[in-house]
């Protein structure tokens, strides 16, 4: 008896996973991803993959949306954190006499910005 139950448990688990995946695929049809299906199909066709089932297209769209969202979220966090970090660093370095301010302008030649007269000299 116990052996049978232990043997059935992995099968039940796999069946549950399959059911969950099937349910997830079904739920994809009720959700419209930000990325249109046509766009996803265009790029999928470029890569050589074609599938008539729209659920797969939406799965790829959702996965891509998640990927871009993660990248954008990280970028936003970096963007928000960056000024604070730089300001702290600048303040600390000024204490030690180090000027890390950005340059006001950039010159491509040593004589850039000089008067023509002084340039000739």
């Amino acid at each position, binding site marked *: 008896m116990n052996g049978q139950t232990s043997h059935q448990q992995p099968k039940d688990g796999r069946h549950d996973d399959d*059911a969950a995946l099937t349910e997830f695929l079904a739920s994809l049809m009720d959700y419209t991803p*930000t990325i249109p299906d046509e766009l996803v199909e265009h790029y999928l066709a470029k890569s050589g993959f074609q599938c008539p089932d*729209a659920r797969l297209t939406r799965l790829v769209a*959702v996965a891509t949306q998640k990927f871009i969202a993660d990248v954008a979220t990280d970028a936003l966090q970096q963007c928000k954190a960056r000024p604070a970090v730089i300001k702290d660093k600048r303040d600390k370095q000024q204490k030690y006499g180090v000027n890390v301010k950005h340059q006001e302008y950039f010159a491509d030649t040593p004589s850039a910005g000089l008067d023509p007269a002084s340039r000739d000299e």
Partner: protein
Amino acid sequence: MALLGEDGRGYELARKLESQGIWRSWLGDALYSSFIPFLSSPAAWDSFMLPDDSKSRPQISLELRARALLFDKASVSLFAQPTALSKLNPNYLELHGDDVYFTLENGGQDVDQRHPGVAASSTTSSKGRSKASSIGSRFSEPDVDAVSQRLRLEELPETWDSEKRTPEQMSTYLSLIENHKRRRVAFVDNISSLRSNPVMVDGSPADDAPLFPETMSIFNCVPDSAVLITRRLENNQKVPFNGVLDNLPQTMTKSPVMSPIMIERLGIRPEYLSMEQGQGWGKNGSQGSRKLLSQEQASRISQKVVVRLLHNVGFESSSDTSLEVIAQLLSSHINKLGRTLKLLADSYRKQCSATELLKMFLQTAGYSNFRTLVELMKDNSKSVAPQTQQQGLSIQGQNLPQQQQPSVQQSQQMLRQMNPQMQQMNNPQYLAFQQQQQQWERMRRRQQHQQQLHQQQQLQQQQQQSTPRPGMNMNMSIDKDRPLVQVKMEAPSDFPLDTNTFTSMNPRQPQLRQQQLAAISSFHAQANNNAFRPMNSLQIPQIHSPTMSMARAPPVKVEGFQELMGGDSSAKHDSEENKLLSPRK
């Protein structure tokens, strides 16, 4: 061999060769001087040719060289009729430049190998390097002396196995003999002298068939014509090809609204599949009208999508460069996922099922736990669901009843108007529009379900009463030719909602029935189910009403029901009890 005499030592043949000065050419001056005494008498010749252990190695090598030449010239008697030595053509006995006296495979080895028949008695002296080299130098004494010095006794190999030809080499050698070697007339009887084409030996035509069967296959491999046979290309029929991922497992959810039994009984199919299994919404295949995008369109749409995504994340603005970069990232990621899918489908098409392939794909993409994707969908659904209804992209394929077309068109018009304002994500009107659009969709779904139930009801009434019923004031096309199928009643426990459905078919309570229809439609709308759509084959369950429980759902008010029903939807018909009345406000 008759030419070698009865004792087989070939003294006469040797004398004949000596008369033409062949021995000097063959052996060279140094060896010739030591050889010529043995030709003085038959006894001396016998002692020369007699195998003796007391002989030195140079003597044995000289004997082998003499035997080789004798055998080469006497071998003609193997393929010809027995004839006398006197009838030998003097020209045949001469040494010629195109005779093969070397191995074809190793030009460096100056081992003298004559015909294959004398391979066993291959001599150690060489007569030349290759046919391409000068003929005269082949017989030059310095070369012979040098070679003979090189191939001294100590250098003689123990076995001659390394000198054996492989079958391929032998076939090459034979073809060389057949095609390039001049055939010379061996006997005086044949009038023909030196010719390049093969000679009729012993009165019969030369055997043109290759000696070895493996050479025949080489000749037979060459096609007769360079033009390919195009018979197979005539039928350019489109063969439907279904990949392994074309038939994903259909939904078999345990939701109270949609059960597998209802799918089977009522013919309700998921919307992502057409009636033909394996096809999408008519997007692909020969029947599909898939909208194709050009590269420019795709890049523009990608950028708009990126704008939307960045806005959802929380960005207020972005530069053009960053938009382009992220748009390229988006396209590259989709390409990568497509390549992964293609690779998995091609590699494991036979071993794995579609579900397993999907799991592998999700694991490769990093979403083995697809809960994160589910959460993303929920988050986006809760917040303003930004839909990228871009210019030129229609609402994704749904058959709308005629009544809903004005509202849909209106929504589409508003979409087009809003397109230039896609960048202004903070526009409150845009947000309100999104919410309104979602509400429209819900209302549309409800109405579709109601229409179907109305149709079912009307058909049943027609059956029961057989009286012409006035049509409702709705632009519906009722298909009266739909087959009616009797369905067994299931246990009430299997259908928590079906009791309400069946009791709604009771023609004796129109008002309550209508309310129940509204309840059902709202219930379905809440479940967000798009299953109740116009179907080609409608199956209506037959009710045994007296035996059914009469549990009824309480009436539920549906928002905007009046609008959906088109204002005065209360059909003022004859005073029949089977009228459908709009709910009182």
